């Protein structure tokens, strides 16, 4: 489809009027596209706060002993950094922004199944965010338990624990509602002819993720309530002094929080499966294998949680079982990586910024994934547990994995969302800075951890200083890259060159409508007759 003709001026969803005025046009809008952008705005703000805290922590680690803050402040900082990054940024993550914006477009629908529920999800997200921030300024001071809220410390500390926990509870609700919405949308609103195996792989990924959101999140909700109640009334569920079981907390916490890492990574993998065919101009290799591996990862992901508890004194039987199950997750993950690489093989590749982010993702995520196996093995886990090795590992998978693809998706879908192009040259410079900075910052942490630097420590032994300095300088380079990238994106949204409907030559449905899309997406609901990535060559029949 081409841009609309000049005769009737084309109104897109950004300009459209509604019965509300001013900011209410946005914050009361049930348009999935506006809700996606509102999530994006909120999450960007939290990301910048999180990055600032990370920057300050690294500055503290420049020298042994006190550099810029005292120990208690450091404790609060790593907790806030973790809570913000996890609950307010990466868990809503790609589904909240790109799932909301692209899912209906990619399946040929006019909106999600429950638009008002969708708006409620966003409002719950905002309320959760406000509670989390409010807790910093109330009596008792900012929470210092680490983002994992382990008992018994979280029951005993005098800092504000209940309010941020309640915030996490509300954010969980937001996530559950989004999940319900997306599952229903995929089942009910696919365009005629779009069978499950004609859906784009991003839709498959969002669908698998939505299931995890619905099934796993209630567990953490209940756990959080139990901690709050136990703090208030000394019930003795978790507190060993009262006859409770502290390991029960860890079980419950990780029964949610391990599947949650798949809430983070699966949608990112889905976006990778969109970007690679578009930039290699080839049909995705192994469509069904990728689709099923999403489901397999979502499924196995439920049954590995106790790999976070190998050193806590859980039974040997369960250590063995959970180690084995953990290794199984590597199989569907490997299936995906090999299929992506095979898609690139003999493709006609355009190395645009989204694809470069994807290449960076494959590199960083592989390092993160393989070091995950080091952590999943019982023997090596004992050595590196709770050291910087773990900190390096999860930054490689979450930051190097999910966040890099979040950045890739921002570049890939920016033209569709805002009708503007970003500056390719600046984008490439920012990618180079991010890549160098990231590896300096975090690869050093693998070595530090292996040599014995514990995580969540404010101080360190003098022999670690060289590596700590390299790491801190890396954080400066990384952050300059990120700021350059945001500057570029911001400028593009304001003043970038106009984007066509389909600047990359993508084949999925969102590229068949104008950029930015009209309010109701499709003038006429399309009828689907072929798979999502039909690039001419041999098509799977």
């Amino acid at each position, binding site marked *: 489809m081409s841009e609309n003709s000049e005769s009737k001026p084309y109104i897109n969803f950004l300009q459209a009027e509604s019965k509300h005025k001013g900011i209410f046009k946005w914050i009361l809008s049930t348009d999935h596209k506006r809700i996606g952008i509102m999530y994006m705005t909120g999450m960007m703000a939290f990301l910048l706060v999180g990055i600032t805290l990370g920057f300050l922590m690294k500055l503290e680690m420049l020298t042994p002993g006190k550099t810029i803050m005292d120990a208690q402040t450091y404790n609060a900082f790593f907790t806030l950094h973790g809570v913000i990054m996890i609950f307010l940024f990466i868990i809503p993550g790609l589904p909240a922004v790109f799932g909301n914006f692209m899912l209906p477009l990619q399946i040929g629908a006019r909106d999600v199944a429950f638009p008002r529920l969708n708006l409620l999800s966003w409002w719950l997200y905002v309320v959760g965010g406000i509670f989390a921030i409010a807790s910093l300024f109330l009596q008792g001071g900012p929470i210092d338990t680490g983002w994992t809220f382990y008992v018994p410390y979280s029951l005993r500390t005098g800092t504000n624990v209940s309010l941020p926990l309640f915030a996490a509870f509300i954010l969980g609700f937001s996530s559950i509602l989004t999940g319900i919405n997306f599952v*229903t949308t995929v089942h009910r609103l696919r365009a005629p002819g779009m069978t499950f195996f004609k859906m784009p792989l991003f839709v498959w990924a969002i669908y698998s993720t939505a*299931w995890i959101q619905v099934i796993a999140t209630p567990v953490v909700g209940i756990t959080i309530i139990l901690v709050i109640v136990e703090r208030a009334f000394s019930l003795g569920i978790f507190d060993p002094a009262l006859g409770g079981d502290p390991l029960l907390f860890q079980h419950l916490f990780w*029964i949610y929080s391990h599947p949650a890492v798949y809430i983070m990574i699966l949608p990112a993998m889905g976006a990778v499966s969109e970007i690679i065919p578009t930039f290699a101009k080839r049909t995705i290799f192994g469509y069904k294998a990728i689709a099923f591996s999403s489901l397999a990862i979502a499924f196995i992901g439920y*049954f590995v949680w106790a790999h976070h508890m190998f050193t806590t004194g859980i*039974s040997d039987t369960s250590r063995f079982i959970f180690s084995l199950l953990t290794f199984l997750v590597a199989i569907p993950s490997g299936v995906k990586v090999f299929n992506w690489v095979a898609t690139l093989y003999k493709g006609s590749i355009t190395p645009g910024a989204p694809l470069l982010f994807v290449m960076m993702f494959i590199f960083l995520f592989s390092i993160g994934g393989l070091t995950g196996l080091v952590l999943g093995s019982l023997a090596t886990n004992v050595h590196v547990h709770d050291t910087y090795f773990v900190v390096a590992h999860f930054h490689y998978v979450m930051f190097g994995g999910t966040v890099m693809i979040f950045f890739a998706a921002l570049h890939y879908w920016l033209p569709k969302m805002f009708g503007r192009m970003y500056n390719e040259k600046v984008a490439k410079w920012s990618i180079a800075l991010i890549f160098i900075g990231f590896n300096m910052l975090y690869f050093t942490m693998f070595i530090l951890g292996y040599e014995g630097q514990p995580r969540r420590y404010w101080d360190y032994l003098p022999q670690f200083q060289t590596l700590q300095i390299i790491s801190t300088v890396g954080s400066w380079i990384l952050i300059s890259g990120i700021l350059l990238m945001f500057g570029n994106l911001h400028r593009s949204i304001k003043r970038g060159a106009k984007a066509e409907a389909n600047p990359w030559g993508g084949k999925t449905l969102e590229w068949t409508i104008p950029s930015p899309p009209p309010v109701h997406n499709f003038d006429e609901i399309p009828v689907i007759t072929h798979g999502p990535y039909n690039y001419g060559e041999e098509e799977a029949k």
Partner: protein
Amino acid sequence: MANEHSEKNHSVGYGTYVLIWLVLVGLTVTTVSISGINLGNIALAVALLIAAVKSAFVINIFMHIKFEEKIFKVFIAIALMTLLSVFVLTAFDVFFR
């Protein structure tokens, strides 16, 4: 979505609802009263069994799932199977510790 069906769902009379409610109250009383008796190892199993029966009533009757389309039952079955697996895996820790 399943609006066409919901019309005939009102075949469940108020009498049934009240009856089920009484059964639920009865089961709750049972749970509370037998918690005072020392049943040893099976105490947990008994408590879970009663809870399972109660939720079956709630899901089927109050939440109308008994009268809904198959897809909803499949969804609930998946969630229940997941929950069951999680229980079993946790038991590997608790009983072998």
